[in-house]
């Protein structure tokens, strides 16, 4: 992968706000989501879940359920294979408990019946003999030696001896000698922080329809961020060959990382295999909260030293993350991201992952980064307050830039943080006056961004239109962006391109829609596929003209002779070449398959104004502005949408959202009434400023924008609350009761 992909160009279509191709389907109710599919003879599947936070499963008696008329299959973990691969085994054990139920809501059995009422009745007839075990849901308790052990023997070789068996991994990043840096500081602040687990909160519950035929072939329809990865997981769990399982991604009703794995899909396949009929499973919201991926819950200690003129002399972080009942590497990303925005001589982060009796963590937008960066940005802000320094000036003074040795190791190439901070500083929001009782907070954010495996096929139809086939579910307008890039490269109007998302039997492997990768990586593959088709079209024109293919070039949607020596021929348009393609050698298509790197890291800066109601503890968000580098915004509206959506998820995380566990280890708020995501009346408009600093790793300079936006809000809100209410909270969410308590405590 060469990283000099980018060439400067004037765009004709990229950067315009075209209508998305799936728009009409989605405003008319025509679009088919996970729960909208049916099949002849379809059964309804339902899952029995553990009411215990931690329990040994002595036995499961299913015969009474099986005997109920209308019940066609009952399964437990005994009906699934035991994959050799540890990662896949964990995924499977999360789908269906084997031996022990590890959290409240852990699946233990499932039924398929002729209708939902019968399926529900059958669940009640399944008798599970549980031996309740001591449980632990708090990361700080779980890390102590002597805490109840969630799973034995899961520690990696990097865990120091003598720690609780719940500690599964340890990591350390950084350089320099923090003690030396701290010795040079005029002020050192040390704080401990905690953040609650939050849920991605997509409005569409997980849903799938599985049909397993007697000949061993199966079809699976599901809402997922990655149908190919679903195939990898399900075929391993079912003991199937990949070619025998075709997975089709439905339209997806939100994911944010939470639909990058499987929960119900292997269960539906196993039920279908046993029943010999298609089985549909749709989760309830309660199941979504109890059994699908929240983020990690965290406990963190941060220590930062600063000189009186605002230079950070050293930073240190101890991060304890819990990804629930299974090992999880998210803390490694938190440890690398924590101080990534800063140019530091001395920096060190230490991370531990700790098992708790909570659901298995699933990725959520920039996994691991929001928490660690919240803690670091809070302490930096407190230091700014201590010295009376401007928070943007301090960040500019310490900002990472080209040549900075990053806190996670590599030396940064060109990055856009300084430009982003400068844009924030000169924006009218930053200098707008505040009223009494209002506070303004800012924070930087960082995320790595990824590329990944991408396949695109581009077919030139004989009428001069284009079909693009790609393999990534469209979660926020990506079909529009991909069509725009194809149209730009080919030089034809956007509405002559139709982009579809293929099933797993129609295209090579595509990585999941994650890591802010699709517009970047699939876009790159699309441009290369278009170039392949252009090469063919130039060859065809050359044959027609009777000149060498090298003497033909592509310009404004047509083949033209390259220079005066090539001969004098009028331009031959794409449509004209396509119309005679059968006569000139056959259908014309281009394709490209690649594992893309060079996504380039991403920085963002957020400014927020709030007012804390000192009687209720409620925080009102008054004004919000997001600054982020998009490299090149292919469809600016959907870039803004990513920035706005990420910011609002971060606002929810900062102010209200949390998993609340009772002393019994059960989740107390598995519904949208008690797990409160931001609603329209909570919010102001979210202003956006898109910076466009071309990414050298993409032909059009595109940089992924999906994840960074969720990183800065946590600290930005906390910093704003501290300036509005005069209290520094070190725990998220800053829910009204918690703020009130702090206000009362502050006297």
């Amino acid at each position: 992968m060469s990283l000099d992909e980018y060439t400067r160009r004037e765009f004709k279509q990229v950067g315009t706000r075209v209508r998305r191709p799936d728009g009409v389907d989605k405003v008319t109710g025509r679009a088919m989501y996970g729960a909208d599919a049916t099949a002849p003879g379809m059964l309804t599947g339902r899952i029995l879940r553990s009411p215990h936070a931690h329990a040994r499963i002595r036995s499961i008696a299913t015969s009474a359920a099986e005997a109920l008329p209308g019940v066609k299959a009952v399964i437990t973990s005994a009906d699934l294979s035991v994959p050799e691969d540890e990662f896949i085994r964990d995924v499977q054990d999360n789908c269906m408990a084997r031996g022990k139920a590890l959290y409240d809501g852990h699946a233990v059995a499932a039924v398929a019946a002729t209708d939902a009422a019968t399926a529900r009745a059958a669940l009640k007839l399944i008798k599970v003999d549980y031996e309740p075990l001591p449980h632990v849901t708090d990361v700080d308790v779980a890390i102590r030696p002597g805490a109840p052990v969630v799973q034995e023997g899961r520690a990696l070789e990097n865990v120091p001896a003598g720690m609780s068996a719940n500690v599964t991994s340890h990591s350390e990043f950084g350089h320099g000698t923090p003690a030396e840096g701290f010795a040079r500081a005029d002020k050192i602040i040390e704080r401990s922080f905690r953040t609650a687990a939050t849920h991605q909160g997509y409005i569409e519950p997980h849903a799938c329809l599985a049909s397993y035929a007697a000949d061993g072939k199966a079809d699976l329809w599901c809402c997922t961020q990655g149908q190919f990865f679903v195939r990898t997981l399900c075929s391993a769990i079912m003991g199937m060959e990949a070619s025998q399982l075709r997975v089709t991604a439905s339209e997806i009703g939100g994911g944010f990382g939470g639909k990058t794995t499987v929960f119900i899909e292997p269960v539906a396949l196993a039920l279908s295999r046993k029943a010999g009929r298609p089985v549909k499973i749709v989760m309830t919201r309660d199941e979504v909260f109890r059994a699908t991926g929240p983020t990690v819950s965290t406990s963190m200690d941060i220590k930062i030293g600063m000189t009186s003129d605002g230079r950070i002399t050293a930073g240190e972080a101890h991060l304890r993350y819990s990804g629930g009942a299974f090992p999880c590497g998210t803390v490694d990303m938190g440890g690398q991201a924590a101080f990534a925005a800063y140019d530091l001589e001395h920096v060190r982060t230490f991370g531990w992952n700790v098992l708790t009796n909570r659901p298995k963590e699933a990725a959520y937008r920039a996994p691991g980064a929001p928490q660690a960066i919240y803690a670091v940005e809070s302490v930096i802000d407190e230091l700014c307050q201590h010295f009376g320094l401007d928070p943007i000036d301090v960040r500019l003074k310490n900002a990472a830039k080209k040549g900075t040795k990053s806190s996670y190791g590599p030396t940064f190439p060109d990055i856009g943080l300084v430009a982003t901070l400068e844009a924030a500083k000169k924006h009218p929001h930053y200098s707008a006056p505040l009223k009494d009782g209002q506070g303004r907070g800012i924070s930087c954010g960082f995320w790595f961004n990824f590329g990944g495996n991408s396949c695109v096929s581009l077919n030139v139809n004989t009428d001069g239109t284009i079909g693009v086939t790609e393999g990534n579910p469209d979660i926020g307008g990506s079909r529009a962006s991909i069509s725009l890039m194809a149209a730009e490269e080919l030089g034809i109007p956007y509405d002559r391109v139709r982009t579809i998302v293929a099933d797993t039997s129609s295209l090579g492997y595509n990585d999941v829609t994650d890591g802010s990768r699709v517009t970047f990586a699939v876009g790159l593959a699309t441009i290369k596929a278009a170039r392949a088709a252009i090469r063919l079209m130039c060859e065809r024109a050359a044959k027609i003209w009777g000149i060498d293919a090298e003497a033909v070039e592509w310009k404004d949607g047509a083949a033209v002779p390259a220079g005066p020596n090539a001969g004098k021929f009028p331009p031959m348009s794409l449509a004209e070449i396509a119309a005679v393609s059968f006569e000139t050698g056959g259908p014309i298509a281009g394709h490209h398959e690649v594992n893309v790197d060079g996504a380039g890291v991403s920085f963002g800066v957020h400014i927020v104004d709030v007012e804390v109601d000192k009687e209720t503890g409620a925080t009102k968000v008054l004004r919000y502005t997001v600054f982020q580098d998009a490299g090149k915004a292919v469809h600016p509206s959907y870039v803004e949408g990513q920035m706005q959506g990420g910011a609002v998820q971060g606002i929810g995380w900062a102010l209200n959202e949390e998993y609340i566990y009772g002393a019994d280890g059960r989740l107390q708020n598995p519904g949208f009434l008690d797990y409160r995501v931001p609603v329209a009346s909570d919010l102001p408009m979210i202003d956006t400023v898109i910076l466009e600093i071309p990414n050298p790793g993409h032909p059009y300079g595109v940089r992924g924008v999906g994840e960074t936006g969720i990183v800065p809000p946590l600290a930005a809100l906390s910093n704003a609350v501290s300036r509005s209410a005069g209290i520094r909270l070190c725990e998220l969410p800053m829910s009204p009761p918690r703020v009130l308590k702090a206000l009362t405590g502050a006297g």
Partner: protein
Amino acid sequence: MVKVRLWGSLRQAADGKTEVEVEARNFKELLDRLAATYPGLEPQIRRGVSLSLDGVIYREAWFTEIRPDAEVVLMPYMTGG
């Protein structure tokens, strides 16, 4: 020889060093030599690593060429949301 920077917790697997040198022309050779020279690194390499070459992060890409003066940093294999 290529200098490879390791992250801190790999020190114990690399004779206490956070920077090691191996003979390698590309990522594949680099990972193979690292695992052979420092068997303690092998479990982590098997679980997955990313590599940064002159500041650009690669997650797979065995045959990416490494010049002897390049900056190479080993990182955990990472995923997004």
